[in-house]
């Protein structure tokens, strides 16, 4: 184990740099949790369904890193992260860093529960920065947006 792995910054969530916003989604798959979990932890599979066929590398173990060249919104968006929890086939937790998180580490938790041969997946994405209002604030136009909101 190298020195970086022992550094407190490299273990668990780095709550200090996380943004305040969360989203949660659920989706039911007609496959077993093992199969769903494999799709989240095998680099070739991740590339196929998540990265739109682009490059992906994934060292799936706690502290291991992944890198995905995500094809989304009509361009390539590099995404990075490290695995916080690898508990197949129940849970997978990793940090998630990209341009959209303004370079900050957000955290994605995937939870899988088997129900009658199907898999209920819950995705929780924590620590998202308030991207738009943050930039708006820097540029001094957040009050403008707040003013307009009732009109929308």
């Amino acid at each position: 184990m190298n020195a970086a792995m022992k550094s407190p910054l490299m273990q668990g969530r780095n709550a200090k740099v996380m943004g305040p916003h969360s989203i949660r989604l659920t989706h039911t798959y007609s496959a077993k949790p093992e199969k769903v979990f494999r799709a989240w932890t095998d680099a070739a599979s991740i590339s196929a369904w998540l990265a739109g066929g682009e490059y992906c590398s994934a060292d799936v173990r706690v502290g291991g890193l992944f890198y995905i060249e995500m094809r989304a919104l009509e361009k390539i968006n590099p995404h990075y992260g490290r695995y916080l929890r690898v508990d197949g086939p129940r849970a997978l937790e990793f940090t998630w860093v990209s341009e959209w998180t303004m370079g900050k580490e957000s955290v994605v938790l995937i939870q899988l529960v088997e129900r009658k041969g199907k898999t209920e997946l819950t995705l929780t994405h924590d620590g998202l920065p308030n991207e738009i209002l943050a930039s708006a604030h820097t540029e001094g136009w957040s009050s403008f947006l707040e003013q307009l909101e009732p009109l929308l």
Partner: protein
Amino acid sequence: MSKLDLAFAALADPTRRRIIQHLSRGRTRVTDLALPFAMSLNAVSKHVKVLERSGLVRRERLGREHYLQLHGSPLREVVRWVSRYERFWNEKLDALDEFLANQPDEESST
């Protein structure tokens, strides 16, 4: 660029924000915008074009007059920016559905 990026870029300019504020009071002729902003029609037109491209503002022709109207939905998305990640993950979770359907059902060993 996505619609949201375009809207965001359009809003980054103070003159364009003032134009939007002006339009929030109601439909306005392009020629009537130049006056309060003390700008040439040409300069105003340039800003209006950026706003139109972003989808924030729509142009209507009534006879010889061009009217501008605020269009709320891209702005709503800017305000509710979180929808970007919701949309992203929803799209990806659907893609996973399709991927799993095309994978053989070997009894797992991983």
